[in-house]
């Protein structure tokens, strides 16, 4: 399988390391009232059959973290974006 790194182009999947779901967003609050939010962020993950956003690390390449949109049923990766740009898109 090949994955398109936003910096290096299409590279074999062996150069990448998988982390997991990119949907959960790290809460900004450190108030005790935000504990449930934190719990969701650290532990709760969907396990969809179909399209999901995932963190992959180009660990055997340029060391960029990327967010790939992958179909868990077909393993097809329809798009990739640098995690940096993904985060900025969320207003980080």
């Amino acid at each position, binding site marked *: 399988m090949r994955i398109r790194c936003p910096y290096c182009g299409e590279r074999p999947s062996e150069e990448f390391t998988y982390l997991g779901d990119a949907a959960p967003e790290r809460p900004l609050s450190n108030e005790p009232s935000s504990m449930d939010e934190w719990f969701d962020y650290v532990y709760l993950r969907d396990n969809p059959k179909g399209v999901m956003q995932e963190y992959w690390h180009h660990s055997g390449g340029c060391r960029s973290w990327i967010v790939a949109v992958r179909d868990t049923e077909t393993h*097809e990766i329809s798009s990739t974006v640098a*995690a940096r740009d993904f985060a900025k898109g969320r207003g980080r």
Partner: protein
Amino acid sequence: MSGHRLSQGGLIDRSAPLKFTFDGKPYQGFRGDTLASAILANGVSLVGRSFKYHRPRGIMTASSAEPNALVELREGARTEPNTRMTMVELYDGLIAKSQNRWPSLNFDIGSINQLASPIFVAGFYYKTFMWPKAFWEKLYEPMIRRAAGLGRATHEPDPDRYEKAYAHCDVLVIGAGPAGLSAAVTAGRAGARVLLADEGPVLGGSLLYENEEIDATSGSDWAQEVVAELVSLRDVTLMPRTTVFGWYDDNIFGAVERVADHKMVPGPHEPRQRYWRILAKRAILATGAEERALVFGGNDRPGVMLASAVRSYVNRYAVSPGRTAIVFTNNASGYRTSRDLRSKGIRVAAVMDSRKDAPKLDSGGAPIVAGAVITRVEGGRDIERVAFERGRGQERLECDFVAMSGGFNPNVHLACHRGAKPEWKEDIQAFSAPRNGSRFVAVGAANGSMLISQCLREGAEAGAQAANEAGFRSKAAPTPLTKDESYNIKPLWWVKEGSSKAFVDFQNDVTAKDILLTVQEGYRHVELTKRYTTLGMATDGGRMSGINGSGIVAEATGKSIAEVGTTTFRPYYTPVSFGVIAGPFKGHHFQPVRQTPLHEWAEENGAVFVETGLWMRSSWFPRKGESDWLESVIREVKATRESVGLCDVSTLGKIDIQGSDAAEFLNRVYCNGWNTLEVGKARYGLMLREDGIVFDDGTTSRLGEDHFFMTTTTANAARVMSHLEFCHQALWPDLDVQYVSVTEQWAQMAVAGPMARRSLQKICENVELNDQTFPYLAAKEIKILGGVTARLFRISFSGEHAYELSVPADYGNMTARALMHAGREFGITPYGVEALSVMRIEKGHVAGGELNGTTTATDLGLERMMSKKKDYIGRMMAQREEMTRKDREMVVGIRPVNQNDRLRAGAHILSKGDAASMENDQGYVSSVAFSPMLGRWVGLALCKRGRERHGEIVQLFDGVYGVHLEAELCDPVHYDKENRKLYA
């Protein structure tokens, strides 16, 4: 014993005779033969014994689906068990042996299993060997293992090389029969990069043995012309002897090329096999179809062969399996075989067609018996006659071999490897390849198209489409003129008349009655039938048996075969050797070896190395006269604590961090704060995971306002780097910070002990080392040895007055040697990770045993490091109730009450008087060492409420080592509690 070579014809080279032996007996064949064709030509029909019943077996196919003719090939270290004779190209000096027989192939004691066959029915493992229970290990299993099984692997290392290779192409064509050849040549003419792979040594597929006429030339001549054109096309690569075994994500195919299996010994610099990973923009499945066996009494006897295999032996190899044939068929294939046999002058006693309303087909003059089924094959060692029925009671007819055809199964395997199920086609009574979109299409017989004209047309069209989709301009040429032979079939899954064993899976000895019994016992799903009977689970992957099995299950359950379906197709299509999977990655090439920049220095000083991940670390430095590691380690610790020691700590992870937000970045990844760290100072840092558990620790130094130098543990070096990258890129991309791993750029050594400063001073250029210029936790760049830039840190893991010195990696050995020279007057002593570990345990410093992925900062006694003023990774989750429970296991010192007792890591802690049980478990010993300074074993433990229990006497229990002793919980710092030596 009536197989023989025909006087003319065949694609063999009669001018090149080859000698070989089978079970020690010498034989002769020709270049172009397979081992199977050569052994048949020599009149040998019995080549092996079956798995369960040890029944005599012969050659059934001429293909890679062969279930019976498995032999041990070659000798000594090159012995290869379970090779299919039909796939072994004959070479001069070939040595083969039969398998699964004792004492000999002709007289085999195991064949008495047949008499006991009532106990070997479906599921016999589950039914027969259940009691008494103790018999399983001692009696049943060894007995089964010896009696069953196939060939034996050699214990000698494989002397041959195996390679791995990658290929990229526009169009991959799998199979070089009529469909594959026209696909490849069409795409190739358009200029596409084409790979054409075929498992055989000669390209042509069925054209090599079928009597076909294409554009007024013979099929095999047409094939040779196309191959010649393909050779002339620059971007076409032909891969004969290459089996594509699997289809994977993203249109990647796995293949094995048998580079030198057809030679006695691979040539110099030549691998035996090559493992290909092929990335194809488009791929075409042109794997043809495998003929189906018929299921009738005695269908496994040597001399019963597939009708198409008979054609292959007669036409391609000029070998007749016998003198008189009987053909048993339910479709046109049998008639074709009859014609081909008759044209070579071989007698055909009858074509028995199971169809009462069989269409009038040309048998070449042989008598046709319509509506007849063979019920039993009879004879002694060789076939003498068959018993058959056509509604007039049992009749008999003489013959010495039988050609059978139950129809054809398209070779759909690869097209199903990614989950699609094959599609049932009523007109050909077979499953054909599923639609997988245009990236991988099936053509010809694999697609269920049984006519030669269809194969040529579909191949050309698919070749053109694939080339177009890969960016070329291509058009299929007009289909050549052919003479099609119509194909129709009436299914015959099982001849129920007759009582002798009718085999479905020949390799695993599964009969039609076994399947029936399985269905009766309730295993009605075809996947359950497979597992209960072992149908299709042999090395042939069920290629001969799977569809017949589905047909019989369908009949027995009253379902249609389309409803019953097939079992799951998974890689590998044919067996793949472990050697080629491992490739060159064996022995010391199994994984890389990382040597530190001080490796040479360590070797010069006699280090014993230990593997730590990929690293080779110096473990201890034995001297003459020392009897074991402990003696050396005790000496190293004493020398260091009493004078000075030198230790290689280069394996620590080192990360250079720069940027205007560097301090803020550290604030967020460490639980302690970094704003107040002065330039020129080092600080101990503790990293948590987001779930609040401790992740890693190390010292980080501020070399400039915006410049830090982080160290991590050896084990977590790569993980911390990835973590920093994640935190920066995915969480806080706005931070102005850059970082890079410099683990391999710096050699780092610890210089520890009362004489460390005086030793170091001698190699320093521009600095006077004292408590003002270099107080505890100082971290500065200095010059040493005539101008080498170094970084000096006054930090200590040993508890001694100590330094860590970093120099560019290339200066590592030189610097270490210079330090040895400088410290000679003080008796400077190299010490390894064992002594390092002893000293950290004496000092109660936590390491891997305590930073074990379950402990919190509080558990480690480091709760004061957790800042309350800032957000950092792990802050919130570390506050959860579970993480702050008072009775968590926390770090505590431990020492045996009896000074002479030995401690062992892993021993469990029990309160005094408690029995050894899980409920009473109080924790365990995490690290132990013999303390040379205290003259006794000391350790660290993780113990419930450990910190409140200093002074308590507990029991230590270790069932593995049979240890049960009393110990005292105590302060983790066993040695120099006041840290006097650190500041001395």
